[in-house]
């Protein structure tokens, strides 16, 4: 009985992160200081990234039956893993301030986050539906705990509850989808499923199964109509956790979406229209409701819903003449990289401002440029990038990169919807950016004083995001060509 041959090197990133989680937990127990846990977390990420890059091209845990391995590392998966890991580093930096002043139990926080990250790192390299759904569950469950971990905030529990219920509902539906797919094709590994898809047209049962499978993905990337939980949960959770949800958890969702659509590329006429409608509704709905928001975090929540719509556009464009391929995947990853940098940056600044001045409404950011110019310029830059308006060059370029696909494949209505959505989006990003530079009507207390210790790390996170976004703006092929680098 041959035990599955395990190539540890390939699995290294996931293992390192899982181990890191344990070490962080124990470190906090031993030293009683949350900062140490964050330190361990950062080190873990630092170690995991090179492993991820090194593992490119390998595959392991291959079973005897037609050598279907359950862990396959492709350049696409490495890119996604790197995005997840780097974003986690930034989130940890953001969170260290909360951990420092005991608003959140440091050890558990870092442990849960790293567990979730280990799942997120696992997803891109999975090669069968079973591992995929388990990994998705590994990513989601700790996040609900993270959301609820916010001491002294009654609404945190409510936020966690909403996310939890939405999650278990969508997982149950997706599991049923997997059951149906397994039922009709007799296979769960992506290679066999792809072969089955090429072999014959989708049976009604397979169609239903696949559409239901998309439920959990729609939940993870918070696409309308599976978005209900997002704004409330982001508002209820601490800002770093909200940032984590909006970037890393969504990246996991997109990885799953890429894998699923990649596998069932042969049935694209069946699922592409669904994804197209999903993308269109998400873009328009996200931007429209964002117009009306007053709270900063809620606005960012709706904005990230809209951005998720943009990221899905290339996959949606497969409904036209363009087939699913590396070109489409690169467009998605390209936008995802830029989105991660811009979005994390915006959340980082909101986190810093919320901590220092307690401001939650974006309207109260009036005259921020007067009080802390650095933060104001950074936020303005992130908002411009999210809007896709120069000087936020990378935001514009990735939108162009994403818009090429529907134009090439002739899905005109999608290109039109994206154009309109971008314009609507510009309205609220611009309104917020303007607030920063307006004259403050009453001179609030100066923001310069460092209220709490450890908030220098938050500023570092802002600086990191700014550096990344500027670098992408200057050399866009860093972001647009990320997949080809590995």
């Amino acid at each position, binding site marked *: 009985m041959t035990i599955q041959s395990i190539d540890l090197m390939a699995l290294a990133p996931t293992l390192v992160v899982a181990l890191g989680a344990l070490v962080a937990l124990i470190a906090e127990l031993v030293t009683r200081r949350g900062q140490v846990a964050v330190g361990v977390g950062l080190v873990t990420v630092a170690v995991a990234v090179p492993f991820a890059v090194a593992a490119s091209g390998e595959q392991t845990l291959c079973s005897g039956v037609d050598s279907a391995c359950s862990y396959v590392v492709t350049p696409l998966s490495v890119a996604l893993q790197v995005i997840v890991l780097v974003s986690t580093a930034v989130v940890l930096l953001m969170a260290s301030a909360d951990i420092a002043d005991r608003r959140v139990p440091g050890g558990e926080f870092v442990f849960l986050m790293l567990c979730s990250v280990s799942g997120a790192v696992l997803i891109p390299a999975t090669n069968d539906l079973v591992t995929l759904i388990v990994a998705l569950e590994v990513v989601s469950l700790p996040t609900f705990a993270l959301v609820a971990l916010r001491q002294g905030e009654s609404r945190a529990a409510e936020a966690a509850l909403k996310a939890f219920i939405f999650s278990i509902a969508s997982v149950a539906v997706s599991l049923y989808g997997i059951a149906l797919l397994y039922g009709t094709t007799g296979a769960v590994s992506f290679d066999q499923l792809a072969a089955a898809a090429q072999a014959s047209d989708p049976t009604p049962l397979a169609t239903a199964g696949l559409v239901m499978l998309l439920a959990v993905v729609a939940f993870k990337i918070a696409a309308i109509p599976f978005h209900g939980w997002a704004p409330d949960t982001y508002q209820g959770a601490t800002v770093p956790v909200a940032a984590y949800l909006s970037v890393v958890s969504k990246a996991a969702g997109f990885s799953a979406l890429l894998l699923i659509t990649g596998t069932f590329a042969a049935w694209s006429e069946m699922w592409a229209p669904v994804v197209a409608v999903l993308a269109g509704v998400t873009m328009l709905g996200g931007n429209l409701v964002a117009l009306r928001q007053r709270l900063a975090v809620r606005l960012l929540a709706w904005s990230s819903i809209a951005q998720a719509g943009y990221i899905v556009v290339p996959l949606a464009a497969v409904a036209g003449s363009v087939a699913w391929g590396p070109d489409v995947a690169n467009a998605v990853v390209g936008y995802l990289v830029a989105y991660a940098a811009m979005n994390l940056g915006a959340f980082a600044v909101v986190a810093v401002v919320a901590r220092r001045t307690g401001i939650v409404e974006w309207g109260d950011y009036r005259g921020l440029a007067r009080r802390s110019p650095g933060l104001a310029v950074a936020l303005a830059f992130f908002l411009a990038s999210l809007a896709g308006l120069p000087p936020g060059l990378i935001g514009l*370029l990735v939108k162009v990169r994403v818009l*090429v696909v529907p*134009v*090439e494949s002739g899905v005109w209505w999608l290109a039109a919807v994206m154009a*309109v959505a971008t314009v609507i989006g510009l309205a609220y990003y611009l309104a917020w950016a303007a607030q920063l530079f307006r004259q403050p009507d009453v001179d609030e207390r100066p923001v310069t004083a460092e209220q709490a210790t450890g908030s220098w790390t938050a500023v570092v996170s802002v600086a990191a995001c700014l550096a990344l976004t500027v670098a992408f703006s200057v050399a866009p092929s860093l972001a647009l060509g990320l997949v080809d680098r590995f």
Partner: protein
Amino acid sequence: MTSNWLLPALLVVPLMAAGILLVAGRRAERWATWFGVGVQSVGLLLTLGALAEFKRGSAGSMQLVVEAEWIPELLVDFRLGVDGISLPLVALTSLLGWCAAVYTVRRVPEPGRARAFVGLLLLLQVGMLGTFMALDLILFFLFFEVVLAPMWFLIAFWGSGERRRAANTFILYTVLGSVVMLVGFLLVIVKTGSADMVELAGGLGEQMSGGAQLAAALLILGGLAVKTPMWPFHTWLPDAHTSAPTVGSVLLAGVLLKMGTYGMVRIVVPTLPDAMVRIAPYLAAFAVIGILYGAMASYGQQDLKRVIAFSSVGHMGFVLLGISTLSVVGINAALFGNIAHGVITGLLFFVVGGIKERTGTTAFASLPRGLYASAPRLGFLLGFAAVASLGLPGLAGFWGEFLALVGAYHPAVPEHLYYRAMLVLAAVGMVLAAAYFLRVLRRVGQGPGSEKTMDDVAADEWLSWTPLIALTVVLGLVPVLVFEVTDPAVRMVVESVAGALP
């Protein structure tokens, strides 16, 4: 090309300067405006250098070309170059930028903040120059968008009246236009596989199928029409002008409007000839409606700036008419019209800005009468600019319009009679233009004379405005200065369209 460092330098110098201003501390408030003048003067010198380097003989081909690969994934290369069509516009932009800088030295509109103001002007300069020099579709689009943010801030923070709403309408309307244009560009890039304007114009564009060409042309023209502005996409212009600070209005009218028509001549006409031949008559119709509509609307306005804004809609109507003829004379007239309108309307807005500074208002209801008496020189300049703008022969405004009519008599497209009807309607537009400008002069300039109450044109105003006055007269008397540069390039463009003509 020998000195191909000129064009990138023209972009980098203002960009660096803007960066310095961004970083400079609060002390920079004092020297910010002088710094602005310095940088713009360097820009002007570089432009003169480019003018000298530019070989008139081969004005048809791209010169001073700079090329560097930037984003392979999007087929975007950082490719700059100028030819007969773009050189005059680059020169106009540098000149207006310099005049604006000189004007702001002692006249930063409230609420002050000179550092930010000059910085934004420099960013605007980069965007404008970049648009005219870009030879790559996406690069053109990027510079097209770079202009928006600075102009938005100029209107929203240094403007007057309900500036926030005006700024928002301006930027949202223009962004919608430019995104539609982007979709058009992407269609062209996807269908032809190249984003290089020179290649596309050279014949690559013609290989696109009729339907694709028509779709791409309509999309791109839609976007550019918003910028021109072509009727009925013009509603943002009057609000933007009424609320913009003086310098903002000058650059908005002087240069930003030209990006639309430049885009048409540079991109749409040579790249999509079949589509242009089919669209040309409709473009002519919209142009003439614009002329008549602009004239009549401006007659009904109650604010000086709004009158000039609508007059711009009329002038741009003539430029569009010139382009729609697709003939050598027509397109030359359009390009000349661009330059002339830039100079004259720039001067007009400077003068109106001066009036607003002295009287505090531009609304007819509250504007004091008898400017000829209260500030004779300012009154004379208002008269001079108004007369030039209504197209008095002998001044720059006339040639753009007159030759557009001559072009309309013999359009390259087959519908000759249709164009002659357009010609007559456009000519009627000229008399309406005279009507509303004389109404302005009568209402503002003349009237029961009051003594010399206001201080007349100051030294720095003279310094800033004289180039424009001189240019209006010189271009009026010797229009060949522009034509010898634009004509070879326009013949190339018309040749590429000739193939598509029946």
